[in-house]
């Protein structure tokens, strides 16, 4: 039954025009960044790495490759994608209440828990597809247009170089892992928006509230104050950019970077666990609240 319900929910999602706003927005933004990099990339790179010429010999042709463009896209886009995720997740229950279809749904011999599971899974599938779309355009599209090569990442005034050479590709797997962790972060946003959707009778409230919570939590996460430092580890927004952890290499005792390594895997695993806990928590609250909710719409 759950599979049948999931199919129905996905069918409803993908028959709604608003569902495609996210895909179109990502397509436009990625396309614009790729175009800008094609036209002005070398100039922009010079500016970015200015002052580091004495430390590195930067070969423009090699640095401006598909991996670099993808990194740039992820840095830019993963801030905006939560809004696109909230657009659909915030509509899952509240949208039905607003349309009046929730009444009809509840009169069918499907348990409320099953209904919540199917709706939540459908919103996760949408989030996943949005990320896959982003990966196709930002990673594979950029690889196609710009080719592949070493990835240079500027981190805290340090340039980290990830090699693509005869010894293999040390970048591609990092992107796959990064997209995996980014999915968990976006799934947490989706779960939050979904939970808020249960308490509302139209989808604007949950969408706006989700974005407001993300903005407030992000401000708390970025302000370096002792009071906020105590709550930061518990905020899911503190882990929204944890995917960047895959672009940080461990070093050996001589101080040399270890190819194929990740600087702090336990930190990444902890971030993943906290995001999963948030997802489970938001979904549990949503299911309990929906189970007790009087459908008055």
């Amino acid at each position, binding site marked *: 039954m759950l599979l049948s*319900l999931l199919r129905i929910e996905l069918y409803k999602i993908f028959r709604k025009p608003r569902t495609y706003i996210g895909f179109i927005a990502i397509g436009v933004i990625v396309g614009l960044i790729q175009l800008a990099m094609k036209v002005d990339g070398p100039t922009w790179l010079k500016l970015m790495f200015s002052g580091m010429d004495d430390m590195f010999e930067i070969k423009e042709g090699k640095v401006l490759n598909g991996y670099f463009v993808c990194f740039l896209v992820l840095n830019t886009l993963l801030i905006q994608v939560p809004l696109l995720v909230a657009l659909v997740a915030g509509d899952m229950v509240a949208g039905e209440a607003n*349309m009046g*279809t929730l*009444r009809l749904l*509840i*009169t*069918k011999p499907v*348990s409320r828990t099953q209904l919540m599971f199917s709706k939540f899974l459908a919103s996760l599938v949408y989030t996943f597809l949005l990320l896959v779309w982003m990966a196709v355009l930002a990673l594979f599209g950029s690889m196609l247009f710009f080719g592949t090569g070493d990835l240079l990442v500027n981190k805290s005034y340090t340039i980290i170089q990830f090699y693509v050479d005869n010894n293999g590709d040390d970048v591609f797997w990092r992107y796959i892992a990064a997209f995996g962790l980014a999915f968990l972060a976006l799934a947490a946003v989706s779960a939050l928006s979904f939970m808020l959707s249960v308490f509302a009778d139209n989808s604007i409230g949950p969408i706006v509230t989700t974005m407001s919570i993300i903005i407030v939590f992000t401000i708390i996460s970025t302000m370096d104050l002792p009071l906020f430092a105590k709550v930061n580890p518990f905020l899911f927004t503190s882990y929204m950019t944890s995917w960047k952890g895959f672009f940080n290499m461990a070093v050996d005792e001589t101080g040399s970077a270890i190819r194929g390594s990740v600087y702090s895997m336990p930190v990444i695993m902890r971030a993943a666990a906290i995001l999963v806990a948030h997802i489970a928590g938001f979904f549990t609250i949503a299911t309990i609240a929906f189970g007790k909710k*009087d459908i008055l719409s």
Partner: protein
Amino acid sequence: MQTPLVSVKHLYKKYQAFEAVTDLSFDVFPGDVYGFLGQNGAGKSTTIRMMLTLIAPTSGSISMFGYQLPHHRADILRQVGAVVERPDVYKYLSAYDNLQIFARLSGIKPTRKLLMEQLDKVQLADRAQDKVKAYSQGMKQRLGIAIALIHDPQLIMLDEPTNGLDPQGIADMRQMIISLRETHQKTVIVSSHLLNEVEQIATRMIIIHKGKKIIEGSTSELFDPANTVVLLDTPEQDMARKMKGSVYAEAMQQKADGWHFTLHANAVPLLAKDLIARDISIHNLSKTHSLENLFLSLTAAPQTQPA
């Protein structure tokens, strides 16, 4: 004695201080068209929503088909089809898609033939692929009925099914409800705030007011001709003296809108003759029914609580 299909016992629903339904009990038997009558805000929709598990009762019990709610919710709802208030469906989908979705949710795997037959029954087959947002209110109502009936339920609940329909739509709906009972042997619960509408289709009915049961019974009993009321509008100041010795004297009662005579429908012409014989000026003489009067008095009562 016949076993009820639906049995509601001592049902209460409270919203903070407001009691929407108070100690409501009634039974619906197989084959009934059960009229659920009351003014807007009387508690009809709240009761129907509790029967459909849309809202939880504060206390009391509801059983259907021998099963108790909410424990056997799925077993019960598999045998129920409903349209609650407006027939809202997915406007961005076609009637065919909507029907298919709700058929699957009702636990059946519908074939194209079944779906088209069902749409044909409600005269929507030729518009099956049109998006519902382009439908009129009457078409949406018909689609709602098709959705309620697609899984061939034993019990159909229709909450204010004629709301927003034109006179032809109302007549069609009335005919369809009668046909559900007579041709398809279904049990129907239909709520309305219009007495004459329920009177024409219901075999049994209940009137509720401010969440409480006022009266319940078979339509034939409740509309017993013996309870006919004749309303006399007269300028006469001394009615008691003029009616002295009349067989109708004991049946008359003075009310704000005139004199009321409660008698059998057959006696109305005789009453008219008697009034004329007694030289009583008649401004207006109208025939009604005690139930209608009761219902009108409830409807006229000022509403102090929200729906």
